[in-house]
């Protein structure tokens, strides 16, 4: 694909460059963006100093959604905390639960049965697909393309409905338990002593849905990727060099778009990803366009993983044997997971009781957003939207 060089914003021929260079005084002006703006995915305020169309410095103001989950976790039992952590990154609620529960399991010394781990893995990947499909709908919309939203949200709805059929919740599943997963919704009465499991037809429906997700990715690819306007707005914009990203703790698709082949699904073992064949999506330029391309590829790879997991899901119990009142032994543990937004981890400190002594929640969006002042410096005001959208953060994940 070739891009019209005159549309390259770094080139001197760029339209906005021309407007800056006319003989006008453009003294520093403070431009307030947000806190309410659709492209901020929550409530984010940017205080930008601009010289004409160019940003000289920007100060993100966060904390509008700070709910204090770390403090709240210090007065709740482990089972109650899973209901909280759902709400950190609400577009992939299920994925937030897994590292927390695995952290508690490691301290307790239990491991979920294989079937429970497969169910966790399937639902985590479905959460990734639904999160990235939100990106696929909102990002082109912010750039000015409304149609992809219809395609992406239709598939996302299908995925969410399937997740709901298992967990009982579209956004906040609260489905993981220490030692396994909850007996599935729709699988029968919770009081009868029959084996509670995935609802009938779930595996077949999910398999079909995953094939359709891959189809819709082809559609999105055809609609958006080669679009000249989309490329003009994203190629070469908001470049995060790999070393800068690592230094700031940028993780997930944002880091892989900068050429770093690092994926905790390959490098860590919080779920049995080593049993599946999938590729890590990596791009080289680290610009907005590459971040989009990486996410599109990740949807396809996630669908691949889900299909393999459905084919290979073992039978067996959903719960390991755990005490009725769970007291976690003394100790400290950090479990991180490759969430749709980046590395999410819980540093869990237990003093042997029913409630943790300290829970530090490391979220992907927080570190991804911390690179913003550096990233926006020197860019153009219209590019703010393209850059913000491409980082794919959620303010609930930033503020916690």
């Amino acid at each position, binding site marked *: 694909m070739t891009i019209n060089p005159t549309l390259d914003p770094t080139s001197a021929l760029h339209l906005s460059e021309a407007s800056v260079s006319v003989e006008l005084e453009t003294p520093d002006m403070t431009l307030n963006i947000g806190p309410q703006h659709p492209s901020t995915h929550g409530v984010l305020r940017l205080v930008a100093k601009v010289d004409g169309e160019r940003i000289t410095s920007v100060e993100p103001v966060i*904390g509008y959604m700070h709910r204090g989950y770390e403090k709240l976790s*210090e007065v709740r039992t482990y089972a109650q905390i899973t209901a909280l952590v759902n709400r950190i990154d609400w577009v992939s609620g299920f994925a937030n639960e897994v590292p927390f529960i695995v952290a508690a399991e490691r301290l307790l*010394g239990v491991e979920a049965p294989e079937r429970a781990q497969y169910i966790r893995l399937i639902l985590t990947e479905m959460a990734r697909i639904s999160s990235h499909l939100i990106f696929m709908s909102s990002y082109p919309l912010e750039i000015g393309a409304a149609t992809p939203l219809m395609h992406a949200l239709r598939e996302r709805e299908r995925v969410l409905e399937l997740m709901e059929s298992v967990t009982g919740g579209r956004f906040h599943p609260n489905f993981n338990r220490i030692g396994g997963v909850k007996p599935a919704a729709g699988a029968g009465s919770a009081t009868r002593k029959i084996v509670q499991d995935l609802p009938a037809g779930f595996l077949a429906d999910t398999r079909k849905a995953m094939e359709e997700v891959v189809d819709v990715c082809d559609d999105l690819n055809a609609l958006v990727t080669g679009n000249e306007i989309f490329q003009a707005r994203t190629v070469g914009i908001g470049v995060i060099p790999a070393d800068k990203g690592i230094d700031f703790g940028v993780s997930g698709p944002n880091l892989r778009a900068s050429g770093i082949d690092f994926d905790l699904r390959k490098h860590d073992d919080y779920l049995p990803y080593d049993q599946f064949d999938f590729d890590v999506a990596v791009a080289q330029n680290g610009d907005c366009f590459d971040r989009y391309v990486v996410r599109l590829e990740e949807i396809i790879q996630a669908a691949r993983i889900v299909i393999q997991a459905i084919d290979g899901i073992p039978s067996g119990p959903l719960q390991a044997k755990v005490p009725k009142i769970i007291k976690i032994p003394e100790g*400290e543990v950090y479990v991180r997971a490759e969430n749709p937004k980046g590395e999410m*981890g819980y540093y869990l400190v237990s003093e042997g009781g029913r409630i943790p002594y300290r829970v530090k929640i490391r979220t992907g969006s927080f570190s991804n957003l*911390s690179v913003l002042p550096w990233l926006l410096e020197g860019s153009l005001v219209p590019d703010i939207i393209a850059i913000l959208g491409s980082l794919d953060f959620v303010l609930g994940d930033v503020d916690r």
Partner: protein
Amino acid sequence: MSVTESPSDTPADDETPDQAAEEAPVEADASEEAVSEDDAKDAAAEPGPHDAFAAEVAAAVGATSWSAEHRNVKVKVPADKWLEALETLRDRGMTFFSFLSAIDWAKEVAVGDPVTDPDALEERIEVLCRVSTVTDNSAVTLSTDLPTDSPSLPTAVGIYGGAEWHERETFEMFGVDFAGHPRLVNLYLPDAFIGNPLRKSYPLLSREVKPWPGEVDVEDMPSTENTEAGDTAGDADDEGDAE
């Protein structure tokens, strides 16, 4: 497995009871327990998979103690070696900045459960910084102890750019002063906010208003006039919470 003061020594035998307690089965009779204790002894005698790595890192940064329990390689340094240790870690390939935060080890807590043995506890603010590589699964949690009254550390912004926001968060939540930080102001909290919410001495307002779980929060239903019936319902609720 953890070692204090002498990184090169093999783990001591006094680890065994802890290990056994961790691995004790949920429902076990006496004979099974004996077997599991033996297993635990064997496990304690062998170094864990991350012990060698932890000992090596500890030696490199001049640590006073290290541990590698639950695959969490944690290395403790004195506060005056904090920056030096971070630099060493970065130069050894731990270039990825994961997080920086703190733990308030306090004898008395305003909310939540206290530590197991408050009398033996040394009150302190423990600052944690976790860094990792982007090529494999190795990662290090660097830790240092600061006095609770006036915790202060030099800023790590010059070593890891990502430390800037994390230090601001630790500053407002724990009151840790990061000397030399370019902009040490509140991150989440309003500028006029007083107090450090994640300190254990800081009360949680919602708990002040309404203790929970299951303490005195069961009120009689408007139609219930028999107080004894109300008490029974309260007991049932307590059990529900325990589960």
